[in-house]
């Protein structure tokens, strides 16, 4: 077995607010191998971005990692001093954001923003850095990179800007690339371009990737394995084929059914998950999904299910329905959390 690149263990992240704190990510655990792509899906507000920002340690002044650890090649990022962490950001771990329109600083040129990072981490001279930036732009398929490098972001279309973001993210050869909804803001045809580019890049650089999306299509297209999140928790983890073929968690099942497939018959009703996602300050007791779950048991309303593998496979699920197929090898840990 290869060395694990990233290991996130029982991550819990919270934000301070006037009422005390709000736990945005309750329990996230996963591992990522070099070159592997993990997809995270889930509804808006379920904590996908917070998870990725926790890895980057970019939670802002009010957010903090409450529990758990994040090990990058064995180094725990959760407790790393800020100055060390800065050396990792943009260098070992890079990130692409959802909104290419607003993720670039409008008052600096593309080159300026790229060079800043290259100079910082690769210790090149400005001139070399610029050359390098141009070559990176070329790699992500930007036409006329020599000219574009001196342009301001507003001159570029959304797709182009996302390419710039990718070029920027890759410029320091990161070990891990985090892409938080990289195509949500883009059109279908442009989305296809970007996804294609990301695949190509991944093959070329063998970068481990964390791709976050609520579009199951994108996940199906890109991920090797998938985390399904609901209300701050990972509710299911499986490799991509297993997940799409045999979803276990009622939420995942509901999700799968409610997507209007192209091959879907027009005259049958769409299935949908009733109700809405509970808000952070009104989390139901027990299983967080129980209020919307068609299969909810009595136990679901009071006891919180653990995330456990089914039949010792790599397929993990957090649901009492599968209690008998799971055995709890992590009982100790669960106690702590409860």
């Amino acid at each position, binding site marked *: 077995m290869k060395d694990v690149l990233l290991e996130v263990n029982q991550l819990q992240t919270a934000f301070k607010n*006037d009422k005390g704190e709000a736990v945005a990510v309750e329990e996230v655990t996963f591992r990522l191998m070099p070159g592997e792509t993990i997809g995270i899906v889930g509804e808006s507000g379920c904590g996908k971005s917070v998870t990725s920002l926790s890895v980057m340690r970019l939670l802002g002044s009010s957010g903090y990692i409450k529990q758990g650890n994040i090990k990058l090649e064995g180094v725990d990022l959760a407790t790393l001093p800020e100055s060390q962490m800065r050396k990792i950001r943009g260098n070992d771990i890079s990130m692409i954001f959802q909104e290419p329109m607003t993720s670039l600083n409008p008052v600096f040129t593309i080159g300026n923003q790229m060079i800043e990072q290259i100079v910082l981490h690769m210790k090149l001279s400005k001139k070399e850095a610029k050359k390098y930036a141009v070559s990176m732009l070329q790699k992500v398929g930007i036409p006329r990179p020599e000219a574009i490098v001196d342009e301001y972001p507003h001159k570029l279309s959304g797709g182009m800007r996302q390419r710039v973001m990718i070029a920027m993210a890759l410029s320091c050869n990161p070990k891990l690339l985090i892409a938080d909804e990289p195509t949500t803001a883009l059109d279908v045809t442009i989305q296809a371009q970007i996804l294609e580019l990301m695949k190509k890049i991944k093959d070329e650089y063998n970068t481990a990737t964390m791709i976050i999306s609520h579009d199951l299509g994108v996940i199906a297209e890109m991920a090797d394995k998938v985390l399904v999140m609901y209300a701050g928790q990972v509710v299911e983890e499986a490799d991509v084929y297993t997940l799409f073929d045999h979803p276990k968690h009622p939420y995942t099942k509901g999700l799968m059914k409610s997507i209007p497939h192209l091959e879907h018959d027009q005259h049958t*009703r769409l299935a*949908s998950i*009733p*109700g809405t996602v*509970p808000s952070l300050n*009104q989390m*139901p007791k027990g299983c967080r999904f129980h*209020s*919307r779950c068609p299969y909810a048991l009595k136990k679901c309303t009071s006891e919180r299910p653990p995330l456990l593998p089914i039949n010792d496979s790599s397929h993990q699920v957090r649901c009492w329905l599968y209690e008998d197929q799971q055995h709890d090898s992590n009982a100790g840990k669960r106690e702590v959390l409860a």
Partner: protein
Amino acid sequence: MPIANVKMENEAASYQKGAAFNLHEELGQEESYLKVILKKFLKHKLAVAGLVIFSLIILMAVFAPWIAPKSPYSIADEFAAPPSKAHLLGTDQVGRDLLSRLIYASRISLSVGLGAVAIYTVIGTILGAAAGYFGKAVDMIIMRITDVFMSFPYLMVILVLVSIMGPSLFNIIVVLGLLGWPPIARIVRGSVLSIKELDYIKAGVALGYSAPKVIFQHILPNCLAPILVNATFGIASAIIMEASLSFLGMGVQPPTASWGNMLTEAQSLTVLASQPWLWIPPGMMILLSVLSINFMGDGLRDAMDPKSLK
């Protein structure tokens, strides 16, 4: 249209079953917007402090005749006397009880500050909203008028208006009110321009609402924040402005006291260095009321910010 009782199988069911718990919670806290604002506001510690202080000042102004220990005009034997038992804050340069004057002055200064700002905020808001909403020629004309007003010989206009109308508290308020609107108009225009593009305004038009209804009921309530900020600053400037008007004999007329003219009267090195009781109290009052208004404004703005309510 006969509204039939449509059965929304999936959803209706869900709301009975799934959302039941949500519903109860939510119905329990069915609150009016005002209450929500009030609650938010009361959480803002400084805002509450501001409210308390400002209310005290208002009370002081309203009940001045009952609170003031002496008449604010009667002249004692000691001029510019330091604080003593007889005169808690001392006497001014004409031998009047400073504490009493300070208390009475709050009536004048607050009326000037609040009155003038109220007037120009209304004017500026209406003009700015009209310019922003209707655009084109209306915008062009209003903005040019704003330019003209902004490049006006301020002092001269005040001089003329006041001398035509006579320098009285009311007229000062009116004049300051008539001249202060251009910045507000610009701010409101800017906000309206951006809010006008929002979908809920378009929805209003699509629903066939008339222009005044859209402007006053839908657009303006949503650009309160910048107006509020400007107004709190405006109150301070109006209070100070009144004082500087007395330089030209156009301020509040003697022997009436305002915080501004109490400060102006103390314009002397001797007073500054050795008679601090003449200037610290009015200065403090201005600062205190302006600060309390500002903190209240901050609190109110935060409380009314829909984002903060989410």
